[in-house]
């Protein structure tokens, strides 16, 4: 246990050493982690609650006020602070995006591994399901699904409905990606050897297949996160968000509804839009770089191996 911890720390250090030299990757990580930081510490970063109405000296709500000392990003049509809404919106957008992204990743990995490993009939059934989902235009499908699920009164919060619908529809590309990788790995001879050991399917998948596709899964998760956040924003913009828990998409929806554009209130619609770009760009940059670094064919195995060898030698001479 202790030894594997040491090894893990060394691997992490090696990874960081390579990663920290990658400018795009660092930029991506910066974008993503600032967004997470803002979401986590929202109450400390905002002067008002997102629902508070800012009033002037006469007690009237300051509607469509441009950025000023009262609110760093101005106010909306009801006189509420945009900055506070933006910061609290990060919580909703990121939560939905992350949960839906992880869900999509889980379903996609499961389908991909099953289809790739068991091939034949299992593969056929799973991949035909994937194909069906792939050819249906997803936006209309999601609109219909979210709307009907809401009407069914299942006593799930509107946000959970969003998470589940995105999570259960956005795994197709992942499934295909992972399936193709599993197909090549399972034909490798060490899988035959493991079968000759008397290993079962579960053991082979856990011990020989999963570690090899893990980098792919990790990198793809980050990429899927950005898609999930974008989709959530899109659906919320179309009015399928939770109005009581506004995300960035919901803010855009409000801005559109209340004629922010014709009123010239750019501070109402630009910040949420830029915030979405901020996070998705961060995810894409980070994801691409992770994919590059974690790809087993591109890592510096030799370097790491040499260090291991030195470590062994030292142990031996003591």
């Amino acid at each position, binding site marked *: 246990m202790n030894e594997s911890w040491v090894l893990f720390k060394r691997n992490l250090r090696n990874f960081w050493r390579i990663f920290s030299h990658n400018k795009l990757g660092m930029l991506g990580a910066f974008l993503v982690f600032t967004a997470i930081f803002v979401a986590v510490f929202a109450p400390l970063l905002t002067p008002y609650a997102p629902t508070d109405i800012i009033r002037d000296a006469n007690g009237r709500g300051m509607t469509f006020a441009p950025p000023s000392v009262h609110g760093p990003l101005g106010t909306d049509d009801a006189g509420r602070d945009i900055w506070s809404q933006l910061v609290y919106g990060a919580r909703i957008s990121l939560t939905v995006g992350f949960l839906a992204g992880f869900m999509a990743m889980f379903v996609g990995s499961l389908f991909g591994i099953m289809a790739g490993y068991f091939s034949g009939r299992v593969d056929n059934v799973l991949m035909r399901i994937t194909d069906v989902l792939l050819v249906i235009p997803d936006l209309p499908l999601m609109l219909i699904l979210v709307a009907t699920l809401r009407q069914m009164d299942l006593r799930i919060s509107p946000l959970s409905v969003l998470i589940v619908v995105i999570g259960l529809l956005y795994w197709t590309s992942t499934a295909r990606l992972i399936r193709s990788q599993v197909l090549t790995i399972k034909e*490798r*001879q060490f899988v*035959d050897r*493991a*079968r000759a*050991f*008397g290993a079962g399917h579960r053991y082979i998948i856990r011990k020989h297949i999963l570690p090899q596709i893990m980098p792919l899964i990790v990198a793809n998760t980050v990429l899927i996160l950005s898609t999930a956040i974008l989709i959530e924003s899109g659906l919320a913009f179309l009015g399928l968000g939770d109005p009581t828990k506004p995300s960035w998409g919901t803010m855009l929806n409000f801005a559109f509804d209340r004629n922010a554009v014709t009123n010239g209130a750019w501070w109402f619609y630009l910040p949420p839009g830029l915030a979405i770009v901020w996070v998705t760009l961060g995810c894409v940059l980070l994801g691409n770089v992770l994919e590059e670094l974690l790809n087993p064919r591109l890592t510096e*195995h030799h370097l790491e*191996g040499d260090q291991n060898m030195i470590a062994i030698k030292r142990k031996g001479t003591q």
Partner: protein
Amino acid sequence: MTIQPLLSVRHLTTEFQLPNHQVARALENVSFDVRPGQTLGLVGESGCGKTTTLMSVMRLLPASGRITEGNIYFKGTDLLTLNEREMRAFRWKEIAIIFQGSMNALNPVIKVGDQISEAILLHNQMEREAAEQRVGELLELVGIQRLRRNQYPFQYSGGMRQRAMIAMALACSPALLFADEPTTALDVMIQAQVLELLKQIQRNLGLTIVLVTHDLGVIAEMCDEVVVMYGGKVTEYGPADLIYNQPQHPYTQRLLKAFPDLNRATEASDSAGQDLVTIPGSPPRLNALPPGCRFNPRCQESMEICTQVAPDLVDMAAPGSEARHLAACHLLKGMEIEDL
């Protein structure tokens, strides 16, 4: 002949389903015995069913392959009657296999030591520490330093990888070891080392080995008995020295002529300096086998009957001799056999 064979393969027939609904019969009516403590060689050109035979016995055929007929008795039980769970418990514990090409049989991202302990931990309820101890012993047995258990396969040389595979095969102390071309892709010095190691291990542990190779030199050096295969059938089967010095089947004769032989060149002066002769053509496609004897299109002594009737195995051993020397050719007039 009185010793009970460890492994008896009887009338084994294995077919592969091809994508175009054709069936390729990779093995037909293959029978042989492996006696405890001995080494049996399986020889033949590529694609004649050597590896398929091993995989059929281990029941590790790919999804398209199926054993359609026959029995495989190991220590008296028919392996074909075992269910998958029993078969899994059986693999590696009783029969272990050294795969063709050690490079690919090792997982590149797992340390060699961990890959060896995998087999131990899968089968024995041995404690992790005891298993670790065993890994060290196994590595030393095949001449690799214990320290190197923590290295990855790419840090091993080709010969070391092959030796690591041997260590892995011995992990659960199997009764029978399948070695599928253990010396291909190794240079001659390392080949000799690996073969020497196998011999040594066999002597020390009393292991039984089935050796698949197309290297007749290896056969001569290692094997007690030899099965010569062609197109999925047994063409000749007998003691190694008989097959080597008095080959009966035209295919075996030509196979031997196609191979440089230092021993024979020095021992018998008349064959010294003899030119090597190739066998024209290539082995038959398994989904389009020639009628009659499978070797007839390439055989110089082919007669009319050869293109019509497949010959049966007959016993060519000298009368009264205990060992049997079987061959399947219309040219040969031997004793008919019943039990194989």
